[in-house]
């Protein structure tokens, strides 16, 4: 998981939604393209073909692979989620469809189905721990590991790209809910102070 990959992928499209009342910086990202790939992840031949076509390694369980302009995340035993810029989605989707064409598979543009937020600051692990029933401690939630769980009342996926930076995706219809929730959870004065 390289730092460079993240900066190039998401930095250009981020809008800060937090202010000086928050102890983390919270951003929303607007130019994130997403493609869902359903396939048999036991099929080594298919995975090699995809790796070759997309130029990105296949992630193992709960892992995110990265290149300078794409991410590939393991979502479930038969699902991967591919990230690229929105402008690239059509091309990459066609490429994926071509590659998987003779296999039982499904690939769809889901760029508009989800929204992307990120958190920056020393206490990202702590803020996530306020909302998700998972162990976010340093030796438990690793960099580049994707965790699908809930943030308070909505399902979400979370991963840390660096020690001070977390990315969060959830469904578009609850954008306002998650936005408000994240801002509330890092209000100054509410620091937990365990780690």
């Amino acid at each position: 998981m390289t730092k460079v990959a993240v900066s190039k992928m998401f930095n250009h499209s981020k809008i800060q939604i937090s202010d000086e009342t928050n102890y983390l910086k919270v951003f929303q990202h607007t130019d994130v393209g997403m493609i869902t790939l359903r396939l048999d992840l036991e099929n080594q031949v298919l995975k090699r073909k995809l790796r070759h076509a997309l130029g990105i390694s296949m992630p193992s369980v709960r892992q995110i692979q990265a290149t300078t302009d794409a991410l590939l995340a393991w979502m479930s035993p038969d699902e991967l989620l591919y990230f690229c810029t929105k402008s690239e989605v059509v091309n990459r989707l066609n490429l994926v469809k071509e590659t998987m064409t003779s296999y039982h598979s499904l690939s769809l543009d889901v760029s508009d189905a989800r929204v992307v937020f990120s958190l920056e600051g020393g206490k990202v692990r702590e803020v996530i721990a306020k909302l998700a029933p998972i162990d976010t401690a340093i030796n438990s939630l690793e960099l580049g590991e994707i965790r699908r769980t809930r943030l308070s009342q909505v399902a979400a996926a979370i991963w840390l790209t660096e020690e001070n930076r977390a990315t969060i995706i959830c469904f578009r219809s609850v954008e306002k809910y998650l936005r408000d929730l994240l801002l509330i959870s890092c209000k100054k004065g509410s620091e937990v102070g365990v780690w």
Partner: protein
Amino acid sequence: MLIFECPYCGVLADETDLAAGGEAHLKRFGPGSTDDEFEAYLFNRENPKGVHFERWRHINGCGKWFNAARCTITMEVFGTYPAQTLEPPTEITNNISIKRPVWKWKEFS
């Protein structure tokens, strides 16, 4: 507040990330079955005081269904395993037999 290891994505999943799915290894009866068989399929459940096999879905996680062997009295979990099987794996039934020498659930023991 239970916690189960999801056999698909390997995480310890909090109960609030899961949806309970009732008894596992139900035998489905469809067209051609007798009224008694069909009624039993729909409504009869083991409801044991002890070892129970049940289904759970990792709804906020990988979305997959898995089965768990759990004691309904002490909440001890003897193991979790993928749901695509007609009977529990032997590692789990052996584990149960070690801890509960006399146990019986449907035709497994």
